[in-house]
């Protein structure tokens, strides 16, 4: 035991490349913490790439009939922006946090399959690089992130763009399936003694459920990609209308993946919020079983709603109504979560750290995205707003106002644990307000643009009344948003160099990752507290008021509340 370094001195917040094994220690690592950091750093890189693509697009759209970009360049940019953000930024950042914190939260040494974990990361990275190699080769994909045939088939796309796109995504997709399997097995087999499945911290629970979404949904994408590649490279006729194929079938298979994908991108964000809000409100998560149950409900419902992406495809009233009703139903578990978080804050003693501010703004922004989401479930409204900027606004409210805000909250919350340094609160507040204002300035007005008839994915637009000024506002907002990302990066760099040293548990939080050092040693834990409830460190701190002692934890008997012992 004595030959193992118990706790590394937090001298250097990250194991820098100059240390001992150098670059090899990163390339060859199977440690979930290093891989988690690699995931997060890579996704930040792709976030910047995708963000710069978005800025180019916003410059082009800043004024009507602008000629800054050619249609081809614009089409390539929006295709790559969507693909990058979904597959190379949002998904991997969530998987990265999952890989880092799932083993820590359940008191495990590592993931169940550390080498498989490493393979997932490298598949993701090389899939992304393959996708971006298309720019170097001179034919970037330009069929949209959905890449519908027949536009993505020869002769409409003669370059190799679709092929790079399909191959790149297949590679990352296989990595994601492997990651999903790893999450499930880890959560099921490696929990610390005493921790029941329903006692896992909520973030771990959502990562666990996310594993099922990954293994259920991504194979559909891989099947669609395989068929598309067969069409393009082997002359098959799956989606080629001239050969008897049906291009609508691709839409079905793609969205059978595509809609669960939306929840892949939001469930772990829900989990992060369910960690941040209780800790800073100083109360346990309100109604754990309802949050956990609603997550499972989303898992099942998400596979039954995909055709709301196809309401304009004239599937017939019965199908339209069925998928509309299922889509509206998914608002129920989501609504449950929003109310749960509000109730968690209710009666608490809320500390408004930057992390908590991001989490609070999530509640409002995600509700806006949820409400516009319900309007798509109402089929006749979808018939008007489909493919318009109203969708663009909705989707960014969910993915940026929702997921990105939650990831920011999670970053400010967990950064001390990962690096041993606190992120600066002063820079953090600037970061928050710039993000909040920039985001709303960019996207709120796009609701209105959609309602007055502006379709999505247009490289320019006629000079109609109001269109120019509204797009200009959106463009200015986008630059403000980009500036906020810059502020965030500066904050990270400054904090890494001379940020305040973090203690092991700077937020006085309750889950197991805070029971080890910051950053954790290579083997994660020397010892674990006894686990009798969902908040082992609370139980440890207040031995006379442990969670399991309170009767209200029994869902059948509630109402009886007890003052915590004030030590």
């Amino acid at each position, binding site marked *: *035991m*004595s030959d193992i*370094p*118990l*706790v590394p*001195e937090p001298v250097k917040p990250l194991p820098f490349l100059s240390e001992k094994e150098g670059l090899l220690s990163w390339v060859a690592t199977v440690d979930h913490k290093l891989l988690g950091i690699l995931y997060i750093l890579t996704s930040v890189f792709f976030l910047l790439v995708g963000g710069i693509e978005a800025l180019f697009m916003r410059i082009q759209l800043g004024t009507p009939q602008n000629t800054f970009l050619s249609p081809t360049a614009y089409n390539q940019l929006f295709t790559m922006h969507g693909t990058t953000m979904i597959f190379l930024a949002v998904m991997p950042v969530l998987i990265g946090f999952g890989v880092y914190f799932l083993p820590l939260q359940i*008191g*495990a*040494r590592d993931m*169940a*399959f550390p080498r*498989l974990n490493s393979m997932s990361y490298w598949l993701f990275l090389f899939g992304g690089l393959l996708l971006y190699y298309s720019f170097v080769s001179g034919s970037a994909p330009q069929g949209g992130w959905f890449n519908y045939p027949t536009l993505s088939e020869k002769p409409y796309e003669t370059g190799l763009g679709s092929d790079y796109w399909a191959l790149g995504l297949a590679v990352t997709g296989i990595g994601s*399936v492997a990651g*999903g*399997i790893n999450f*499930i*097995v880890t959560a*099921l*087999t*490696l929990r*610390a*003694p005493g921790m029941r499945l329903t006692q896992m911290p909520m973030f771990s629970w959502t990562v666990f459920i996310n*594993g099922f979404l990954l*293994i*259920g*949904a*991504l*194979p*559909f994408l*891989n*099947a*669609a990609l*395989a*068929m598309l590649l*067969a069409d393009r490279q*082997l*002359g*098959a*006729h*799956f989606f080629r209308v001239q*050969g*008897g*194929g*049906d291009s609508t*079938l691709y839409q079905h*298979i793609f969205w*059978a993946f595509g809609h669960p994908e939306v929840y892949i991108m939001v469930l772990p964000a829900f989990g992060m919020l369910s960690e941040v809000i209780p800790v800073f409100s100083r109360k346990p998560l309100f109604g754990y079983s309802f949050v956990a149950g609603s997550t499972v409900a989303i898992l099942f419902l998400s596979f039954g709603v995909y055709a709301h992406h196809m309401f304009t495809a004239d599937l017939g009233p019965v199908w339209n109504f069925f998928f509309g009703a299922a889509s509206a139903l998914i608002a129920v578990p989501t609504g449950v979560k929003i109310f749960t978080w509000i109730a968690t804050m209710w009666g608490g003693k809320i500390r408004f750290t930057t992390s908590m501010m991001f989490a609070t703004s999530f509640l409002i922004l995600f509700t806006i995205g949820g409400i516009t989401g319900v309007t798509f479930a109402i089929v006749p409204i979808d018939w008007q707003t489909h493919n318009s900027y109203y969708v663009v606004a909705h989707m960014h409210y969910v993915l940026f106002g929702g997921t990105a805000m939650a990831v920011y909250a999670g970053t400010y919350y967990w950064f001390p644990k990962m690096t041993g340094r606190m992120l600066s609160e002063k820079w953090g507040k600037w970061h928050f307000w710039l993000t909040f204002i920039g985001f709303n300035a960019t996207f709120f007005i796009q609701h209105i643009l959609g309602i007055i008839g502006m379709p999505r994915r247009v490289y320019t637009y006629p000079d109609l009344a109001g269109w120019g000024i509204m797009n200009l506002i959106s463009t200015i907002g986008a630059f403000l948003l980009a500036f906020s990302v810059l502020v965030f990066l500066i904050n990270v760099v400054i904090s890494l160099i001379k940020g305040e040293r973090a203690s*092991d548990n700077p937020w006085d939080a309750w889950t197991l990752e805070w*029971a*080890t*050092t910051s950053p954790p040693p290579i*083997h*994660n*834990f*020397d*010892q*674990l*507290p*006894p686990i009798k409830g969902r908040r082992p460190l609370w139980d*440890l701190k207040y031995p006379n008021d442990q969670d399991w002692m309170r009767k209200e934890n029994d869902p059948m008997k509630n109402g009886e509340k007890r003052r915590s012992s004030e030590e």
Partner: protein
Amino acid sequence: MSTDAREARRAEMNLGKDATNARDMMAQNSQSPQTPFQKILLDPSKMLMVIFLLSELSFFGALITTYLYYQAGGIKGPNAKEALNFGQTAIFTAFLLGSSGTIFLADRALVKRNRRALVFWLVVTAVMGLIFIVGQGIEYSTLINDNITMSRNLFGTTFFTLTGFHGMHVIAGLLALSIMALLAALGDFDSGHSSALTAVSWYWHFVDVVWVILFTMIYVIPTFFG
């Protein structure tokens, strides 16, 4: 870091007198499960295989749905009934199905700690799988000689994609079986228990089950009920 500092650090963590030593904890992680159900479920390797096969179900489900969808829509040009040789494929199918039986015998030999029988049955399984693949190769070359290819019509497109992906799974299984046979010959499985071997046998059964579905769908139904 000195021992004192380490002790001080540990005291600082203060996880209480009931704290578990992490080494003990890890030993408990891999503790032997109690019920047979847990035995299957809580073994990471086997669980990995089950979940992986679930995801394969999604993948083949999409391809099979596509095949059925185009069959239902009616196909112009050569179709399954005209193009395929039922009898020939039925023989090769028998080899693949038989290999499910031989790998079961290999599993039995594993439990009985009979190294020679284990290696023997693994090799037999692999050879039978290989015969199936050779049969598929013969079938493909006949079809291509008749100018029935992926690009001929929707039957060619769906037939080659579906059976091709299945064939690739068989080949992956052959690789896994060869490795298992080699390890078995080297005495790796003498303990009478191997999650890896069990996981591979499950994979092999899955490949068989998928082939039963495909064979019924592509060969049996068109030939007898088409």
